[in-house]
């Protein structure tokens, strides 16, 4: 995927044992299916069906740490914030799929400092 449609961020310094906030911003129109385009044709509904965030650690099984199932009630370019307890360094793997079957993903290294 050439274009990066998502951004994931957390505090600069994450210490083991601490609870930190993860912020996710995805570029997505979240079409409700109720609006029309300039020619009066209904724009089909296209919202993110599921967005998941997995924790990937070396030698550890994939662990789902966050999942959201939005509907058309979530604004365009959705923002999600949630919390995680830091254990050890790894990667956060963000994936989503929308009504049009379009999938997207983002992997980002998470460095956890010793307490």
């Amino acid at each position: 995927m050439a274009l990066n449609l998502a951004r994931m961020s957390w505090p600069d310094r994450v210490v083991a044992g601490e609870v930190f906030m993860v912020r996710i911003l995805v570029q997505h129109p979240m079409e409700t299916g109720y609006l029309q385009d300039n020619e009066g044709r209904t724009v089909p509904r296209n919202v993110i069906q599921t967005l998941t965030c997995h924790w990937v650690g070396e030698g550890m099984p994939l662990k789902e740490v966050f999942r959201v199932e939005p509907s058309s009630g979530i604004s365009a370019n959705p923002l999600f914030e949630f919390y995680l307890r830091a254990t050890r360094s790894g990667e956060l793997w963000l994936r989503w799929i929308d009504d049009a079957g379009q999938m997207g993903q983002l992997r980002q290294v998470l460095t956890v400092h010793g307490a």
Partner: protein
Amino acid sequence: MMQRRQWLHASAALGCGALGLSGGQTSAWAQGMVSGRLRSLSDMLAPWSQGAPPVRQAVHLQLPVLADNGHLVPLSVRVDSPMTEADHVQEIVLVSQRNPVERMATFHVGPWSGRAEVSTRIRLAGSQMVLALARMSDGRCCYDLADVIATESACVDGS
């Protein structure tokens, strides 16, 4: 040759016809949207409580009192929970009172989250109550309500 009066009549009929047509379309739209009807609290709670009697406690729903744009309303939900293996929040559901799609989002969290708090931005089809419902690991169901005045609805019928 056509009289002025005849022409006026004809054009008026045409105009009315066109109006009638577009009027019909608009009402069809409104019907399709099923918007505008305010659901009762029990109607909002019933599909999500799954039998457990919902209680209004432990959940704190934060929304602006006045949202001048229904397209983008910041929302945050916090649940009082130790988030341990034995006692944690499993699911947080956001329900709208008036939107054509009742369920706005479902969040899945767990003991690994450390804190039961999520934030997002929602769409609102006009002023209404918003419900946040949390399902606990022991089957309990807690909720909180917030009243929002939205001066501009997120549902505009194609205009």
